[in-house]
């Protein structure tokens, strides 16, 4: 196949490109320039889209002896990822930009362009197992390395998107990928993993948001309705957050308080004890399915955030959304995140579908 390897400049996508080439594909490397103003060598900043990352990706492509290009998708990234990210926070939700980038950039803009240019698929360094025996029925499973599994951030992809995707790292532990990079002479073998949101290289998400949203001060209210503090804007908070609430007075019972909910219209941040975070049911919007949409209640395992947060659940399609009943309570379930539905399987849990969490209840 003719494969476009998306190369971020990190170790995973470099090894993915190498494996695709070794598998006999005709591979072309592409680095996606996503920052409107990429950090320069002189600034010394690191981020997903810095000049240094582009250089690292190019160095790897040269070692692999594959053609390499930089595609400028900064405008699309701004419109489809960064601006919705800000808007979601302003609306009191907690978006996952990596998931949105997979959905709108890597497996939409990039895949569509690659297909038009004559490529058959886009390969990335995501940790997930994908088999596409028939294009209409791609099967997406958790990665073999449970610590690195990224099936959650890929769980929002439609079948036609997955049909054009290749994830060559799904069977490998991260340590093996690093060792392979070193053995292949790829200079990024020791490069640290990226953890921050790529377009906020400082790691200061609050600062980034308040620059763009401004101040929208309001009250912090406990379950009794008492005002226990004030805040600069609901975008400063995420459901389940404990630290940085800025509450001077402790709770009467002395127990820690958490963010329970965000109400952007009244600019209210609801805070309270941990047990109030327990969620036993949620609704989801805009579901997508990799299996036939279930006509009846679907028993599955649901995951509600990128790391951890899984529970057995029953999913029902209701109208154009879903209702999810959890078998045990989960904490820190934030509207705006995805709920991804899995069927447990010894060969790797299979992704059945997903939806965006719209509301939660106890």
């Amino acid at each position, binding site marked *: 196949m003719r494969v476009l390897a998306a190369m971020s400049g990190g170790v995973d996508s470099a090894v993915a490109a190498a494996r695709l080439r070794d598998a006999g594909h005709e591979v072309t490397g592409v680095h996606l320039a996503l920052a409107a103003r990429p950090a*320069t060598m002189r600034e010394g900043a690191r981020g997903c889209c810095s000049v240094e990352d582009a250089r690292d990706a*190019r160095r790897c492509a040269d070692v692999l002896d594959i053609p390499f290009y*930089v595609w400028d998708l*900064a405008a699309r990234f701004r419109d489809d990822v960064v601006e919705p990210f800000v808007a979601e926070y302003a609306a009191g939700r907690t978006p996952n930009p990596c998931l949105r980038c997979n959905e709108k950039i890597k497996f939409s803009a990039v895949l569509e362009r690659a297909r*038009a*240019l*004559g490529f058959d698929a886009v390969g990335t360094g995501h940790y997930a197992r994908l088999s596409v025996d028939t294009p209409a029925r791609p099967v997406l499973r958790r990665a073999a390395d449970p610590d690195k599994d990224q099936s959650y951030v890929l769980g929002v992809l439609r079948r036609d998107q997955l049909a054009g995707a290749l994830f060559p790292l799904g069977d490998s532990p991260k340590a093996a990928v690093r060792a392979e990079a070193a053995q292949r002479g790829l200079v990024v073998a020791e490069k640290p993993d990226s953890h921050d949101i790529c377009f906020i290289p400082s790691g200061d998400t609050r600062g980034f948001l308040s620059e763009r949203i401004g101040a929208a001060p309001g009250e912090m209210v406990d379950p009794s309705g008492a005002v226990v503090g004030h805040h600069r804007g609901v975008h400063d908070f995420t459901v389940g957050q404990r630290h940085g609430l800025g509450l001077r007075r402790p709770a009467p019972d002395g127990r820690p308080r958490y963010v329970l909910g965000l109400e952007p219209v009244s600019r209210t941040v609801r805070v309270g004890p941990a047990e109030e975070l327990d969620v036993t049911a949620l609704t989801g919007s805009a579901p997508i399915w990799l299996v036939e949409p279930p006509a009846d209640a679907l028993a599955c395992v649901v995951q509600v955030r990128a790391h951890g947060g899984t529970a057995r659940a029953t999913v029902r399609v209701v109208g154009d959304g879903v209702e999810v009943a959890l078998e045990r309570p989960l904490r820190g379930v934030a509207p705006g995140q995805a709920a991804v539905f899995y069927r447990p399987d010894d060969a790797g849990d299979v992704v059945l579908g997903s939806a965006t969490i719209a509301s939660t209840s106890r």
Partner: protein
Amino acid sequence: MTYLDHAATTPMLPEAAATLTEALGRVGNASSLHSAGRRARRAVEESRETIAEAVGALPSEVVLATGGTEADNLAVKGLYWARRAADPRRTRVVVSAAEHHAVLDAAEWLAGHEGAALDVLPVDAHGRVEPDTLRAVLAAHADEVAVVSVMWANNEVGTVNDVRALAEVAHEFGVPFHTDAVQAVGALPVDFAASGVDALSLTGHKLGGPVGAGALLLRRDAACTPLLHGGGQERDVRSGTLDVPGTMSLATAVRAAVADVDRRTATLTALRDDLVARVLVEVPDAQLNGVPLDRPGERLPGNAHLSFPGCEGDSLLMLLDARGIECSTGSACTAGVARPSHVLLAMGLDEDLARGSLRFSLGHNSGPADVDAVVAAIGPVVERARRAGDALARS
């Protein structure tokens, strides 16, 4: 492989490569007094004389440098500093909008760090600077301008300026005039003395010589403050141990390229005209940028610069590369991201058309097979790039 990126760099002429490799085996610092030094000095001075003769300069006017970027920086900054030192009122720099970044960014640096005021001369739809445009700027700021720099021939669209007329205008106002002739030497008749310019940049690797060897031709009476201080070589304007093999190879290449200009102009013009005509048959809505082909002498003979509506330049580049055809979109930023060319924007192209542009530049070893390869590939490549553009707009 079809190499049509000679304006980026052109293969070394065999005689220049032979000179270089032979000279690499020698020892000798041209500033030393002993016999090895004398031999090195003689080789450098003979090379200097060869270069001077080929481009109508005096040997003492040849300031050896590492190439176009250094020569441009030395001219723009050095002439500015010297003129300002002589007359503190002169703090303006005038450059054309179509300059190479080696001139443009040097001028912007002076504006950002040396308190200079920058005047950017607009170009016409073909990329040319009209002498009257320069006259108007100089008249508006009489006694304030320290240096003017306008390129001899544009690296992207191949447009040739009337440098002699422009230099005359600058001199009417007592302002030194520099020209970046990196693309011109070896491609067009260039006579330093007859042109009347005060300083002229040239470089080896655009005319069949080595990368890393070039020169600033600098009139004896042009005051120029050095960028590099040290041993006082090159009239104290450009210190640094001379590169003897590079200089010898540069001289061989300049002499050969200049001697061959007429023949090469005829060959490349015919090939280029054929390429443009046949590409326009394959892609009827493609557009030639720069000076029309029926005005020879106003355009570099090997330059074909075309816009393909509805295409991204980097898609075209990638698809052509996959078919073994190497050309260029003209300009790239630090991250390797294609940006619309400042030259095309200055000529009035809209951003979309500017993004969908390709430069094919032919050179001394180009032939009809290269043109045939482009003609065979361009139709399907443009069609595919258009689909990719549509896909991106849709997705």
